[in-house]
């Protein structure tokens, strides 16, 4: 099959959002099919300035065709226009202008789609509330798949967006919550609909036997599991054996030991990964975590990712920086608890990745998707306010058997719903339906 993925930005530097989701799916699909990524030359989603060269490129098996944007965004003018468009009494012309300013406004890409759409078996649009999808879905709706990645936002009330959601022949939702939400807002006419989401790698869970007894940074439960033998989750863990049959020390073989050593982390720690900004709930997280520490909590907070807000210089807060995928995995595995404070999530790869390595999650209850993950998977707790955060975190940190049980449930949840082979076969089936 020849498939086109249409997304506003594409590149290994872009982490998070529908762009990251698109890249992960495209790279996996490229192993089995001919995959093109049709995107713009923009790297910054706030300005849509052309930064990448306008030329075909191949990234991890995916042929990336970039097209230059015809307009950049003036944030102040856009905010003013948004205020007008999101209030009653605006016109269709206002909505069209809003869409142009929302961007990315890329007529060459739409031209390319119009000329070449017949050469593709499926056009997969990621994100429903940007100009590429709204305009692009009108080119060939019968062979279009929309991955909406939608959450409750004012733009969904616009007629122009509503029409776009009613066009595609297939819709791939991230979660059942998203499907329910969109069904309540729009008259979805897609013939093919499925909850697909994004795949997550399930690492082999015996690479890091946990700490042996007496190790300084082991929790009680971890220490118990350090010995060879079957653990509570039914997995056999063995201490790696070095040359001459010598067993490595516990500081080398513990779960996520490398990450702990590199960042000098001792004792339990709570991990956040992603864009570190107030919009992602990080400000609230830092505030709540300070309350946890004031209440006698002994864990520390580690934040990894791009720092877009200042962090207080507290001894219990560590900024780990932007990590590679391997290190990211180690960090998730090393963490006692992974916290997901974002109030707006459409899938939350962070939560799914934490589940996949058996680390329990403490999520914001304001995100329905996260609560759904926690409840359906029985794999994490959630908090609605400061007290629930403090109490929930204290419970998770103190109760190792509970963490182990939640971790095992999380792995099972990912295995059942978000394994790559399941996700890819669902996409293949959906695009296959479009060819009929």
């Amino acid at each position, binding site marked *: 099959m020849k498939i086109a993925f249409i997304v506003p930005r594409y590149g290994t530097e872009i982490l998070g959002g529908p762009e990251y989701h698109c890249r992960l799916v495209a790279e996996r699909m490229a192993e089995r099919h001919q995959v093109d990524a049709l995107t713009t030359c923009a790297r910054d989603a706030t300005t849509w300035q052309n930064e990448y060269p306008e030329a075909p490129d191949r990234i991890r098996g995916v042929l990336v065709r970039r097209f230059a944007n015809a307009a950049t965004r003036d944030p102040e003018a856009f905010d003013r226009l948004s205020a007008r468009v999101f209030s009653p009494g605006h016109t269709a012309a206002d909505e069209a202008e809003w869409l142009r300013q929302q961007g990315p406004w890329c007529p060459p890409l739409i031209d390319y789609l119009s000329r070449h759409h017949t050469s593709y078996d499926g056009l997969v649009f990621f994100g429903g509330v940007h100009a590429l999808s709204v305009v692009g879905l009108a080119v060939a709706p019968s062979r279009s798949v929309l991955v909406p990645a939608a959450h409750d936002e004012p733009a969904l009330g616009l007629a122009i967006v509503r029409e776009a959601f009613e066009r595609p022949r297939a819709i791939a939702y991230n979660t059942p919550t998203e499907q329910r939400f969109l069904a309540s807002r729009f008259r979805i006419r897609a013939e093919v609909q499925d909850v697909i989401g994004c795949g997550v790698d399930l690492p082999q869970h015996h690479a890091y036997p946990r700490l042996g007894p007496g190790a300084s940074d082991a929790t009680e439960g971890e220490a118990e599991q350090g010995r060879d033998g079957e653990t*509570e989750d039914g997995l056999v863990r063995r201490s790696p054996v070095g040359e001459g049959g010598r067993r490595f020390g516990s500081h080398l073989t513990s779960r996520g030991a490398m990450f702990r050593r590199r960042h000098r982390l001792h004792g339990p720690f709570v991990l956040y990964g992603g864009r570190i900004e107030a919009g992602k709930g990080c400000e609230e997280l830092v505030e709540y975590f300070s309350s946890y520490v004031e209440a006698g909590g002994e864990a520390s907070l580690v934040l990894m990712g791009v720092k877009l807000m200042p962090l207080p210089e507290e001894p219990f807060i560590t900024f780990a920086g932007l990590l590679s995928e391997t290190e990211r995995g180690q960090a998730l595995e090393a963490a006692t608890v992974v916290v997901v404070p974002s109030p707006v999530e459409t899938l939350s790869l962070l939560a799914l990745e934490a589940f996949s390595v058996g680390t329990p999650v403490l999520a914001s209850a304001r995100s329905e998707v996260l609560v759904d993950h926690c409840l359906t998977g029985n794999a994490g707790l959630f908090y609605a306010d400061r007290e629930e955060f403090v109490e929930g975190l204290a419970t998770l940190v103190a109760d190792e058997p509970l963490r182990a049980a939640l971790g095992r449930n999380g792995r099972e949840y990912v295995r059942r719903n978000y394994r790559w082979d399941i996700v890819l076969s669902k996409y293949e089936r959906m695009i296959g339906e479009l060819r009929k």
Partner: protein
Amino acid sequence: MSDPNARFQTVNVEQIMAQIRARIRERRGADHVDAQIRELSAERLAGLIGSHDAQVELIEKLRRGAAAAREEAPIDDSSLYGRRGPLGWVRRLLSPILALFLSPKAMLHALGRQGDSLARQEQSSAVLFELIENLVLETTRLEVEVKKLEMRVESQATRFDFAERRARAVEGMARYRSEQAPEPEGARGRATREPAGPAPAGAGAQPQGGREAETALGADARRRRRRRRGRRGGPARLPDESIASGAEQAPGGDAHAEPGAAASGAEPGESPAPEPRHEDPPTPPDHDDQ
């Protein structure tokens, strides 16, 4: 946790969350207070809005606002021509003639837009109402909290006053004792330091042996007093007592000079401290003392 697998099978996030919330409520002691606060805030909101029937209805309408807006039927042809039936059919048949006088499509479009706008307004009103309701609730909660804090401050102030008065009483007692102390100290000092010297004027009638006996009796009485204080003071006073008892066993039999020296770190040959009972701080008076 003997069987972790059993724990795994039984783990239930909803249950754990319920337990966490119960613990929080228990800590706050707010189980019944929460309901009371809601009641109080409802009354306050009613007071703010007024008791007019129309206004009460309006509140109810606002409460149901968002849901009601979604339930409304969409505006289409049937809104203009009525349901399908003979009359509707005739109306539709005659619609081209009607179109000569007015434009039904434009009317439908305008009605649709108005409907949309009304629905949005109702939704925003409902959201605003919810916001105000929550604000009133939070204000009421804060007010209750402030009252609680005021009461705590008052209670702390009372305790502070009490502690201050007690401290003053203790200071007063110490001052009184220090004023009382020099006279017996002088007598005792003479009795112990000048055992072989001439008898003072006031004590001339007493023989030497009698003075020694008196000193011994006085020492016994003091020892008994210290023991009593030691018992009253509890284990925290044991070090003082040990110092005192060590002093009593010191050579020379000067029960006052030695403890003072021990407590202040002075050499045994030095003169005794002016505060004769310094090594043995006064027991804080009972509450009745005040």
